[in-house]
């Protein structure tokens, strides 16, 4: 993919990351904070994918898959903790 497509997309995704930080700060509830953190993880995954297209290195996508795994586990554990008072309760 040509660079003149990817560079603006990278700028766009970085701005989205800043706006996601704003959503994290503005969250009123701990659950809304979890939603914002999940969204931030998704934006970082998109950013890593774009970086991988720009550099032509598939290994950034490896990091994206690992980040998806970590964010999934973290979200589920936190939600279950808030639900029942323990991640395995």
């Amino acid at each position, binding site marked *: 993919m040509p660079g003149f497509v990817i560079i603006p997309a990278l700028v766009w995704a970085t701005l989205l990351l800043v706006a996601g930080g704003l959503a994290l700060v503005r969250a009123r509830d701990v659950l809304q904070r979890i939603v*914002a953190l999940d969204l931030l993880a998704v934006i970082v995954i998109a950013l890593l994918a774009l970086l991988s297209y720009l550099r032509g290195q598939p290994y950034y996508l490896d990091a994206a898959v690992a980040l*998806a795994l970590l964010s999934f586990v973290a979200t589920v554990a936190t939600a279950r903790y808030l639900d029942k008072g323990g991640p395995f309760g």
Partner: protein
Amino acid sequence: MISVVLDMAGGALLLLGLVLLTISLIGVLRQPGTFGQLHAQGLATGPGVMAVLASSIATENAATITFAVLAIVFIALTSPVSAHAIARAAHRRRPRRHGAAPKAAAPEGTAPDGEPEQTR
């Protein structure tokens, strides 16, 4: 010829994904309740990031496309589960507001008609 077509398809998917991510972020910023935010977030974790990852077809690099497919499958299987975990926690923390499943103990951090106060 094929390369041009793939480039255009990838660019269109990339644009679609970024627009969906933007709409989702606006929704999360604007919606007051957790359930509304979950609908907005589902827009990003489902179609948004999948469109961005699917635009890897334009790179024409087998390893990149393979990883992207792996990431798409993984995200498609995990994002409903995490959304469900958040929704269930939200439902159980304030069961009275939506009427279903009344519990004996009223949740303390809940305002009479509005949003729950900051609890933690």
